[in-house]
């Protein structure tokens, strides 16, 4: 990779300054510039044609996966809320005023593996973004009252989510599928842990101290930005951030010992829902496994998939069908979610899903079909890169998984390598009865007729 000469003395101290131009055969069309600071913080800058606008993201490689202490599920997400509670220099109100003045779109989200803070706003305010973001990552300060109040907002967030069957079903699926690993709880956390949050002020201070450290974070800037100036600013604002990240000991999940199932009675009349998971390997861009699972998801659940066609278009037994593998740092689940027209059809829907999975295991699929899926994935990727925010969120996901933004290219390289034999092999490895978990949800008193459609 070509080296570039840094402009400022501060940047000379940096471990590396690299620019990888987009290669003609790689899917990601923009040059990726990277630099690491002495304290371990890494900066990634991607110029993108969005005149006057930048997306400024901070990826913290800590999520609900890191919640290893019992009773603290949901804490990574709760802590994300606390990051908006101010510092000595910028109180909560002042921080909001700065963002308001620049007209920024700003928020954050937490997932199983990471927490992502973002500001999308005027490129002319890039330095202000560096100032307020570095300040709160280095100097967050809040009192116990603020902490206790914010815990109620998290409870409110849980309450707004729980009116959908998705959350309770997802909670049950994970609790059944994982015994030891922290993927046994959702990112929101267990309700009893959320209710106990107001009492954990001291724990929250320790949480910040352990995880919000430069070695565990990556600053990503996408849009109307000059890489060298951005690196100089990041060095200036974040250079004195003290390292000290302490990685948690996340217990590995033992191999599954059998299939699991659960059922939820829903208090209101509702169409039955079905959610299932199969134990799947951790994300990898160096082997073909993850890529093959993504192609299998398309083979089974895309609109053009025979299973989708059968269940949604022809038989019309379900009005919603989704499935796939979402990239995770540790072994996770290939999951399936559907809504069935009536209770009596649930066994038939389950049988149809099983039958299509069995076919994948029994015989290699048509190579031409596989090529159509690869085409779909490449065009879908290109169509999705339509704003600096969209580019930023895409790359942030890969930064979380491997720390390397160019992982995006490796993933699409792997797609190209997948053969019909890979599909058959991976299907046999993943779709095993001993790693299978099923959760159903329905209204107990509801008759099949009441759930039916109009005549």
């Amino acid at each position: 990779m070509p080296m570039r000469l840094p402009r400022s003395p501060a940047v000379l101290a940096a471990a590396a300054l690299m620019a990888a131009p987009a290669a003609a055969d790689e899917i990601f069309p923009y040059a990726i510039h990277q630099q690491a600071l002495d304290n371990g913080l890494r900066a990634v800058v991607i110029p993108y044609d969005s005149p006057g606008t930048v997306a400024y993201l901070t990826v913290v490689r800590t999520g609900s996966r890191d919640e290893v202490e019992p009773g603290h599920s949901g804490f990574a997400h709760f802590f994300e809320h606390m990051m908006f509670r101010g510092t000595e220099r910028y109180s909560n109100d002042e921080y909001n005023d700065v963002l308001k003045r620049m007209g920024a779109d700003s928020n954050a989200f937490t997932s199983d593996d990471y927490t992502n803070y973002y500001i999308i706003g005027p490129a002319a305010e890039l330095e202000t973004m560096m100032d307020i973001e570095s300040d709160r990552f280095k100097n967050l300060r809040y009192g116990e009252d603020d902490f206790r109040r914010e815990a109620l907002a998290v409870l409110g967030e849980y309450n707004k989510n729980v009116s959908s069957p998705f959350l309770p079903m997802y909670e049950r699926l994970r609790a059944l599928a994982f015994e030891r690993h922290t993927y046994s709880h959702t990112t929101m956390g267990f309700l009893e842990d959320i209710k106990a949050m107001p009492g954990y002020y001291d724990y929250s201070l320790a949480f910040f101290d352990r995880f919000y450290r430069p070695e565990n974070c990556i600053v990503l800037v996408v849009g109307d930005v000059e890489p060298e100036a951005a690196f100089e600013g990041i060095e200036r604002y974040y250079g004195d951030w003290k390292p000290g990240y302490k990685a948690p000991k996340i217990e590995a999940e033992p191999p599954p010992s059998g299939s699991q199932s659960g059922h939820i009675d829903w208090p209101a009349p509702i169409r039955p829902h079905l959610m299932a998971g199969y134990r799947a390997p951790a994300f990898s861009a160096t082997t073909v496994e993850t890529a093959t699972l993504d192609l299998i998801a398309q083979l089974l659940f895309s609109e053009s998939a025979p299973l989708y066609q059968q269940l949604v278009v022809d038989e019309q037994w379900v009005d919603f069908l989704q499935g796939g593998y979402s990239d995770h740092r540790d072994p996770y689940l290939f999951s399936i979610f559907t809504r069935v027209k009536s209770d009596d059809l649930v066994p038939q829907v389950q049988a149809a899903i099983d039958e299509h999975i069995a076919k994948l295991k029994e015989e290699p699929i048509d190579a031409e079909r596989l090529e159509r899926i690869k085409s779909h994935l490449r065009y879908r990727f290109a169509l999705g890169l339509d704003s600096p925010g969209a580019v930023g969120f895409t790359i942030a996901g890969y930064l979380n998984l491997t720390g390397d933004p160019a992982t995006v290219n490796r993933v699409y390289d792997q797609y190209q390598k997948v053969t019909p034999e890979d599909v058959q092999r991976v299907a046999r490895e993943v779709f095993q009865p001993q790693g299978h978990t099923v959760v159903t949800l329905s209204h107990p008193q509801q008759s099949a007729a009441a759930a039916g459609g109009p005549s």
Partner: protein
Amino acid sequence: MSPQSRFATFALTFAMPILLAACAPAPRPTAVDTVTLASPGSPLIAVRLMFKSGSIHDPAGKEGLAALTGLMVGEAGTARHTYSELIDLLYPMAAAIEVSTDREVTVLSGEIHVDKLAEFTDLLTEVVLEPGFGDSDFARNKEQLYSYLTTTLRATNDELLGLEAIQQRIFHGHPYGHSPAGTVKGLESITLDDVREFYRRHYTQANLLLGVAGGFPEGYVEGLQERLAALPAGEPATLELPSPPPVEGRRFTLIDKETDSVGIHFGYPLPINRADPDYYPLMVANSFLGEHRTFHGRLMQQLRGKRGLNYGDYSYVEYWESPPFTSKPSPNVPRRQQYFSVWIRPVVPDTAHFALRNAIFEVDRLIERGLTQEEFELTRDFLVNYSKLWAQTLANRLGFLMDSRYYGMDPYIEKIDERLAAMTVDEVNAAARKYLQTADFEAVFVTDEAAAVKAYLEADEPSPMSYNTTPEAEVVEADKTIQGIAVEPAEVAVVPVAEMFEGD
């Protein structure tokens, strides 16, 4: 960022109808009305077809017909291909033809890579010009609408339920008064012949606004216009909307359903929309009060930030599409009649009464006190920059331009710039006084404890708060007033959720 910089690289061209000499007979314009937005370097092209075919055009007793017709065009087979075949053809291009029906319009849209433009355009024109109207597609699409009403709204998303319900209360007895998805009884009565007839009347050149944006080749737009000229000429659907029903007093509808918390909306019709000059100062006042999904609105700061009542609190001077899932306004849901509303996300039942009073207090405070010069400048600067982010993608830029054509106004995002640049704090405060009030509104509570809520609303006793922290002194002081605000409901009705969306 200079106000115009985002648009500097794009040529805005409008294919205007031919200007006619005053004495000449009035021939039809030679081309379908079109909005184009060229971005020559882009590998992407967005195409949108907006038909004046919304739920306001549903015949009485056939509620849902416009949406079902939209689905039978956009998500069904054609005379030449089954729906499955169409999906298979679109799939390798990662293309989809999306269709959505709101109160006034149905929009078919798609985005495509330039490599595949010709193939995609063939399929798009095929679905619009030659719908197949097959029985199986009809059953599936009707089922989709039915299950949206009976499962999605009634049983799986209290926030969408409350949003639809508040609109139905504000516009009861009005063409906006039912969901675009229709009613259970309306859907039951719709036949395939109804769909064919509705398509014949509404999918016409006169009702169509075409939008094309991105890196399309020369001659593409003209070619597409020519193909769409195969639609019948038709007459424009000029449905005059009646005035919304007057609201007298504070009227409450409690939707009774199993839920752990209480979601609240209240609002009333506004006499203006974004085409009106007064809309812009009102937009500033509203942004100060409760800009959607930001942390700096007064409602958010006071209810969530200072009191921990819930997850979010916002206010609106326009309909907002799918607010639980969007952070910025969506294009292509134009409505000539708009409403003001406050959305209080779920609170625990014990604090619902106080939360309502707190929101009333904040609206009243805005009306009485207005914005200071400093608050005004901050909010104005925010909106000038923030509104640029609403149109970041090609498809959204195109969508907002098409909406402006629909409203008969200059491009909206630029209009915000222009109006706000010349605005004063006095205009904003005058607009707040003129258009905001809390004496007459419709309110919807989604709650498991309808009887208890009804009892305390009618008793109108003080609702003191108890906090898990020591609140700030100013919160303690304000709460003394807020907890005793007289709500004085004019009516409190309880509706079991199973009765929602049934239809007459």
